[in-house]
């Protein structure tokens, strides 16, 4: 019995540790004071100043734009790549999969500075385009890795059968393979989208020209000290994440059935 209570206590302690900072941010986003630690009454002021903060609004726009564009490109390229990789000879497959895992295993900072070196060497202006290119680069590997298992589960003969029955390769791909691997594609796309939204390090090194995403905006604000608007932003983002997670959870449950 003692151990049961000890377990409960430990669980509560860990969850408190995990949530305390988030709760603090959320509570103080409604605090009518510039000083975080003192409660001086309820206000929506920081949400208003947040919506009037053009830096953050622009950063939000770029974050979503980069995430959508890079996830879409990554999904198309990653799916096609997984399809090609699936039919490769073993040793070629191994080489390509090893290269594919480099952006996953490499520390973000190394990926960031190496892409920056590339862009600068080719005299590309750092900005929106370079940031999207960088995001596609770290997104594709995750799409490949989530589509590939679905291809492996598929029976190897279905494609042949469709072609024997007169389907063109493209038609067979669309009508036979695509429906089978669709869950993998959607998972890959969601991973790509969330990674892109959350990325700081790689964006930090590959952007310029006043193009910043939310992470970079938060970083530069936080470096200058504590700002109550960030609390409001954190609250909104937390609610957004929670809704997204519940949606995804529903999806996977449907898949399981």
């Amino acid at each position, binding site marked *: 019995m003692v151990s049961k209570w000890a377990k409960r206590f430990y669980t509560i302690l860990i969850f408190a540790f995990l949530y305390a900072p988030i709760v603090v941010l959320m509570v103080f986003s409604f605090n009518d004071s510039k000083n975080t630690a003192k409660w001086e009454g309820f206000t929506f002021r920081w949400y208003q100043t947040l919506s009037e903060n053009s830096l953050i609004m622009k950063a939000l726009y770029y974050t979503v734009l980069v995430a959508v564009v890079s996830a879409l490109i990554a999904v198309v390229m990653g799916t096609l790549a997984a*399809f090609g990789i699936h039919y*490769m000879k073993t040793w070629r497959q191994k080489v390509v999969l090893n290269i594919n895992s480099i952006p996953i295993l490499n520390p973000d900072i190394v990926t960031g500075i190496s892409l920056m070196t590339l862009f600068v060497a080719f005299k590309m202006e750092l900005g929106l385009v370079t940031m999207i290119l960088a995001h596609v680069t770290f997104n594709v590997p995750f799409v490949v890795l989530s589509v590939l298992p679905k291809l492996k589960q598929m029976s190897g003969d279905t494609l042949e059968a469709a072609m024997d029955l007169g389907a063109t390769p493209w038609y067979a791909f669309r009508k036979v393979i695509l429906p089978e691997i669709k869950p993998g594609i959607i998972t890959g796309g969601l991973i790509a989208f969330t990674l892109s939204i959350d990325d700081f390090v790689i964006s930090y090194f590959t952007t310029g020209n006043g193009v910043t995403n939310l992470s970079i905006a*938060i970083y530069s604000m936080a470096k200058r000290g504590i700002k109550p608007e960030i609390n409001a932003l954190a609250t909104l983002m937390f609610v957004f994440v929670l809704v997204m997670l519940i949606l995804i959870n529903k999806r996977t449950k449907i898949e399981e059935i």
Partner: protein
Amino acid sequence: MLRKISSSSYLVWSLLFIIIPIVMVGFLSFTPVEGSGHTGFSLENYKRFMEPIYLKVLLRSVEIAFKATFICFLVGYPMAMILAKMDNRIRNLAVMLFVVPMWMNFLLRTYAWMTILGKNGILNKFLSLFHVEPLTFLYSEGAVLLGMVYNFLPFMVLPIYTVLTKMDNNLIEAAEDLGGNKITVFRKIIFPLSLPGVVSGFSMVFMPAVSTFVITNLLSGGQYMLIGNLIEQQFLVVNDWHFGSAISMFLMVLILLTMSVMNRLGAGIGEEGSAGIW
């Protein structure tokens, strides 16, 4: 035909954006800074990295990353066990709740600790209720360590949790039937079988911890230098890309070696440590 075409776009892409950038960084690292009087191949940048000031930074990074990993293990293993033994109904919910903070922007999570640990932060306000003078929590090694543990704890818990839930219960029951008490069963059965999860947890915490520069910049106010900060500084402040490249190459090799050793360890133990982030 279609099979070849379909992957070629990504092959070209990975050549352009994965291989070539790394080759370029490698090239920079082996060439001396312009205007230093030397040209051609040189090990100058690597030699410079072996100077005591920089070696100290490296050792400090490895040390603090290892400390963070170990604390994550000590705190995380019991948590993983508790989660794994929960009732099916509440377990999924509990695991989801455990993961939710991880989905929140990494910088916001780190920033949150700034507001708690700061001089006028919550913690000091709380302590002042007990008439404790304001303490400096922020801008110290402890704050950085806390930031690492907070951000990376799920990376330790999730792989261990996955291995524990997949574990064959018959083995545990057999051990109990044969007279093993709880501690023996844990020591001889549960823990050894969970090692693949522990191994992948170790590498998943150690890797981001050793290369971070964000946590150090925010929670130590830039006073505390780790290898990630050194790279950032060389590229964005000092503008010595050659030296920065050498450090990056070193870090990359260090990480890839650690990963392959860990992988081998995981494979040697038996089951592959396949528990990923997802």
